[in-house]
């Protein structure tokens, strides 16, 4: 038997609710608090039960639903979205070392390139202008400190 996408998602949520509830039982409570009507575990445990019930209901609903041809996800532009997400992760990781200016320019340039912009002048100018403009507004007008990055700290001090 093949599972529909909805049924698989519902099973996933059911498993998540159970794991969440199991984690909730490990939340620390102070001695004597177990006799109180409400502890830090109460709400998460209640959510876990509600989540499991809803997950089961959705599993039952999806299994009973007539099998229809679900729209394929293969036609979507996954490679570009994946690359953009990876670029975001690198942006976060490079921030501390390269600082706002360099990492933002790289992030924007990568974004334009991933989405198909090939004109070097456009990629370069759009990333430099936006980054420097934003940096100027933040640091010079609003007085918000944007770190120059650990790599450049030695040069600047």
């Amino acid at each position, binding site marked *: 038997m093949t599972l529909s996408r909805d049924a698989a998602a519902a099973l996933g949520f059911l498993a998540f609710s159970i794991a969440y509830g199991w984690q909730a039982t490990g939340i620390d409570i102070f001695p004597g608090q177990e006799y109180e009507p409400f502890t*830090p575990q109460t709400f998460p445990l209640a959510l876990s039960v509600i989540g499991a019930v809803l997950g089961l209901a959705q599993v039952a609903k999806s299994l009973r639903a007539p099998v229809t041809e679900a729209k394929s996800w293969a036609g979507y532009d996954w490679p570009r979205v994946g690359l953009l997400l990876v670029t975001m992760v690198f942006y*976060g990781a490079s921030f501390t070392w390269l600082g706002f200016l360099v990492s933002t320019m790289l992030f924007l340039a990568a*974004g334009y390139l991933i989405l198909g912009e090939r004109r070097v002048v456009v990629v370069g100018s759009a990333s430099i202008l936006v980054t420097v403009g934003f940096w100027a507004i933040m640091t010079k007008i609003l007085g918000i400190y944007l770190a120059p990055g650990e790599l450049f700290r030695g040069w600047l001090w």
Partner: protein
Amino acid sequence: MWEGITTGLLTAFTPMNLMMVVVGCFAGTFIGMLPGLGPISAIALMIPITYGFDPASGMILMAGVYYGAIFGGSTSSILINAPGVAGTVATAFDGYPMAQQGHAGKALAIAAVSSFSGGTIGAILLLVAAPALAKVALSFQSSDYMALMVLGLTAVSAFTAPGQVLKALIATVIGLMISTVGTDPSAGVQRFTFGSLDLVDGVSFLLLAMATFALSEALMAVLKRDEVSEAAARATAGDLGSMRVTREEVREIIPVIGRSSILGFFVGVLPGAGATIASFLAYGAERTFASAKEKLKFGKGSIRGLAAPETANNAACTGSFVPLLTLGIPGSGTTAVMLGALISYGVQPGPRLFQNNPDVFWAVIISMYLGNVILLILNLPLIPYIARLLALPRQILIPLILFFSLIGVYLVSFNTFDIHMMAGFALAAIILRLLDFPMAPLILGFILGDMIEDNLRRALTISDGSIAFMWERPLTAVIFGLTILTLLAPLVRIIRQRRGAMLSGEGG
């Protein structure tokens, strides 16, 4: 009340706040016109900017953005049949045919006048309803609040697309679960932090709102190879036609505006209903009221069919501020994001907002009216130029949206872990969206999670651990009763449909 209105006028009419309304309306119109980006994203993108402002100015800017985004959504509905917002889907029914017949300018003018009138009548009703409800709400207890929040959550889920109620409820529970990450507010113990210091403060609402709306909506446009901006560029490159509305046409839409604004406002006040339902109900009601001859025009460019949903969605936007300002309970995804923003300014919305921060309360109400005026007199003539901004190529626009979303969250926390977390939440949101899970209940569940837990704790402590408070206090019992009815409504609909199908099967 007059004293309050004066306070509101004095606050709203400062040069800084007037500028906020203008900037908010423009920014909102532009973002609302972008394919896929709705008012929630527009407001979320503004929050980091408003952190440096006082709460009244911040809220005024966001109210302007909200109206602007709805208006921008109407514009893209009319010009390119691509509603940027669910609340303006019904606008496209008659607005787009009008644009195709060469009356885009007239359609935009009718939409703007209807939005203005709906918003104005809504603001007047809000002026009367909000203080009255705030007074009543002062007698509410923890159990009533908890019941109201549960009602809000179930209503938002029950009113989503038919057949998706379970999915919406699951999304709500996911939001509630995310809200439990971090330090427990009463005992101070850590929950679901897995030893990570970055999670000790929990997940910030701005991060979640940006990741699940602005980021995921922009990425969905890439995923689906959305090329709407090019269609917008083509549509606005041509002539929009005259924006003049004749006297007969004005006479025809006045009663429509009257009916639709009252209907829209009251639907907006209801938790969970909001602009989308209001606009569809108003459209349906007008078609029912119309003469047989007029009925034929619906869907082919009827001005009544355009005016009704436009009026109702703006009145509903105003109405949705009633539960937010008086009870501190958001009735929609958009007002949920505003609630999160208010809390982060240090303002607690609820019945006491009216007493403790009258400047915020009244300035927001007054600025809503101002926002409508600005949309009518400033935005409308500028629409062709704002729409041309959409011609900015997608490959430039989307990285900019991603950048502003990421940097907006980073500038609040200065923690790069947040950027990683946003990428993770954005991916999860994309998958949930592809599986038809709505995102508004998730963000609403997340924002209400802490408050529900807090009120449940108090209610249980007061009643000594017994859950009898649910039926012993009449007000709580009535609200819980309504919650159950809301949950049963979709079930009744399904049973009726099945019975209808069975009967027609037997008949055939």
